[in-house]
């Protein structure tokens, strides 16, 4: 049976010129900002592979920056992303670079910062406007844009102590929230674990704070569904 939807063919609606280098780039930026949560004052983009070579011609830079300012791939504001960022006092920098083997040619490492918080995300545009996130703060994960459009994504970072995953899952169970998908990644040097869960319902602010106050849990981030 075909898994293609009508709107996979008649879509997406996007700012040109390229589904992989423009629409996909905007989606990765959106994704990074959703995970970052608060307002950044500084953003750095390390452009890997083809992204580094052709980003100017495809406006990959403006799309990434627009995405980081919450613009979906069909937002005409992407054209003016540089001016909009300057007005918003968001400092930005693009640097072609090499993330090494094992990354898709259309990959970017995004560092979002303000005086309080810094988050580093690596994401790839894998074709036709589809994207995936490969790293969050060094944790090796695999989160697709489709999944983040379809479900509510929950990111939980915790100390590597016994029973930590159970704490998160039973908390969700008590709230009657179903888990559709779940993955965890261990960062050896820091002895921490990051889990990414796809949920059928978002957590309320109160629930986020309650889960975050559990011992051993470092931070909890509940994402809205990404808009297409």
């Amino acid at each position: 049976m075909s898994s293609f939807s009508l709107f996979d063919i008649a879509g997406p609606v996007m700012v040109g010129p390229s589904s992989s280098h423009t629409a996909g780039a905007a989606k990765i930026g959106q994704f990074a900002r959703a995970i970052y949560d608060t307002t950044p004052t500084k953003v750095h983009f390390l452009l890997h592979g083809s992204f580094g070579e052709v980003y100017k011609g495809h406006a990959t830079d403006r799309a990434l920056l627009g995405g980081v300012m919450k613009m979906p791939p069909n937002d005409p504001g992407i054209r003016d992303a540089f001016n909009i960022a300057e007005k918003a006092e968001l400092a930005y920098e693009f640097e072609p670079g090499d993330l090494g083997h094992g990354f898709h040619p259309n990959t970017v490492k995004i560092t979002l910062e303000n005086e309080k918080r810094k988050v580093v995300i690596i994401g790839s545009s894998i074709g036709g406007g589809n994207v995936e996130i490969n790293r969050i703060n060094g944790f090796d994960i695999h989160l697709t844009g489709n999944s983040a459009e379809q479900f509510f994504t929950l990111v939980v970072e915790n100390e590597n102590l016994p029973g930590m995953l159970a704490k998160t899952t039973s908390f969700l169970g008590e709230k009657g929230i179903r888990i559709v998908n779940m993955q965890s990644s261990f960062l050896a040097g820091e002895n921490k674990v990051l889990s990414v869960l796809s949920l059928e319902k978002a957590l309320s602010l109160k629930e986020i704070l309650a889960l975050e106050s559990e011992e051993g849990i470092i931070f909890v981030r509940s994402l809205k569904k990404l808009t297409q």
Partner: protein
Amino acid sequence: MSKNFAFHNGKKLLEHCAEYKMPIWEVMLNYEIQMSGKPEEEIYEMLHTRLQVIFDAVQAAIDKPEMSPSGMVGKSTPILAKAFAEYDKTGGELLLNKSAIAAMLGAVATGENNARMGVILAFPTAGAAGVLPGVIYGARERFGLNKEQMVQMMLTASAIGIVIANTATLSGAAGGCQAEVGSASAMAAAALTEVRGKSPETALHGASIALKNMIGLACDPIGGLVEVPCIKRNGVAAVFSMSASDMAYLGIESFVPFDEVVKAMREVGDMMSPKIRETALGGLATTPTGQKVAKKMGLLKIGSNPCSN
């Protein structure tokens, strides 16, 4: 027993049309309702929104022509818009009728709007986004279609796109331009044929005739940009889809059935060198003119990274 609208090839699609006594567009609509769980009204609303994106993209390029950042494209829309507007006066010099000029205009304007970062509907991809708007403009000019009929054309076209995506590919990086503009032409020919009241079989003959004549088409854009040859190619392909549809409309059948044509397209795509699959490493991209532009724009070092797309 509840009806099942799932299909992955042309044969199954035609079986549904026969069994449920529905045109292709209606099977496609029911497929989407069944698959997505969305109500019919919501799907129609999404289609009408996308139809409006098609109109807005074309109009934006007509109202405010602008060169793309590379300087390669942006001049054709005003020329075609003028030819269309003055057709009744000066069209006698041209070979094609007014509806074919409208088709070229719709297609080229979409491409030029995409190249200068306007909003477009990737239908089925950004690189082939002009063909369907082109034939919608062409058919509207010729037959005075209403929006319902245009949305039906989008549905018919999408059914053909789903068949191709399942059996072959719609990506230039995977299958060359035959998979992008070739597929869009097949989608357009089917839509044009069905909207004129012909049977699903006849619509598929139109799609087959169109795709057969696109097999082997390379994806060799200068600098890897969706500009040259893509934009004018969309314009010519829109008119070419009209020819394929007219052949089918007149009763000419494709000797090779649609599903076999799609498989042949996939096979040829597999045989294509990666140099002519959206890497800018061969064909028009590596002509002296192509290399000059790529160098000026600081694009693609020739010979590097053959797998980017």
